């Protein structure tokens, strides 16, 4: 359970330590990729809590979502349409949904454990 948190912290630390920065013209893509990644992460947590977690789905979802979001943003830049908004909207809504579901699951788990005790 604590391994992912540790991984996240380690990743943050590495990212800050490496002093790696993205050129400003690509920072849009990265921000969307981060959003997609967060979405996948919360989706994974939710699936884990619901007991329907699958490695393959999670990994493919992670990379596929990131690529799709970045590709959409790229296409949008070349078509002159702010397509990245579509990605932001979709991921934003899913993020909220996922977090809401996670919250409910956690609450029900908590109340169950209290009833038992």
């Amino acid at each position, binding site marked *: 359970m604590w*391994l*992912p*948190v*540790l*991984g*996240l*912290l*380690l*990743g*943050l*630390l*590495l*990212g*800050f330590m*490496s*002093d*790696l*920065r*993205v*050129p*400003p013209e690509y*920072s849009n893509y*990265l*921000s969307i*990729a*981060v959003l997609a*990644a*967060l979405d*996948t*992460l919360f989706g*994974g947590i939710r699936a*884990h809590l619901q007991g329907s977690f699958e*490695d393959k789905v*999670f*990994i493919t979802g*992670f990379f596929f979502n990131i690529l799709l979001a970045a590709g959409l943003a790229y296409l949008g830049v070349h078509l002159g349409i702010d397509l990245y908004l579509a990605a932001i909207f979709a991921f934003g809504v899913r993020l909220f949904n996922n977090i809401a579901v996670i919250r409910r699951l956690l609450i029900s788990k908590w109340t169950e454990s209290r009833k038992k005790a």
Partner: protein
Amino acid sequence: MFATIALIIGGMLAVQFETTNNPIVRDTRDLWELRADLEKEKQRQQELNEELQRYNELLNKYESEGNDEKIKAMEKALADLKKQAGLTTVSGQGIVMTIEPFSDQLIGDRPLPKIDPDMLRRLVNELNRYDAKEISIDGQRIVSKTPIREVNGDIYINNEPVSSFPIQIHVLAKNNEKLHRKIIASPAVEEFVRENFFVEASLAEVILPAYEQSVKVKYMKPAKEET
């Protein structure tokens, strides 16, 4: 597996955070700009070094001299600073500039031209750029905090209204002849002429009054003494 993805996400977040907080600024200066900047920095370094040396000397003086001398040195430093800040009356060989509207025949029936505070500010800036040491406009000493404003159509300097024309500007400089030549060719003076003012500058003995109001220091705190 989950941990690996979390690690990647953490890295991405950190990079994104870094990118938005201190983005890469591209250096687009060309060779000449770089040279000019280098020159500027060198000049700055020299100035700082000189300042450092001066303060070191002052420090040495404080340390080496006795108590009595210390107070004397401090008083001298205080007097110097007061002089620098424009809190004393100064006099000497300087330049008198007179600003007045062109005579009536020249401007016909048109109303008297009006001075814009921006013009005066620009003139003061320009005089300072030409190494003027002390400036006073219409008997008001210009210090670093002097406001030049327009209130209800009148010009106020140091919150005192400027009297009617001609307006006299007194300037003291290290090299008066040089300043005089520069004033004659100054764009700020040309601006006055464009607005139908006649500007005359001549060398003369001038007396500049002291800045009379109290100087309010808002954004300074005494540095903590290292013990």
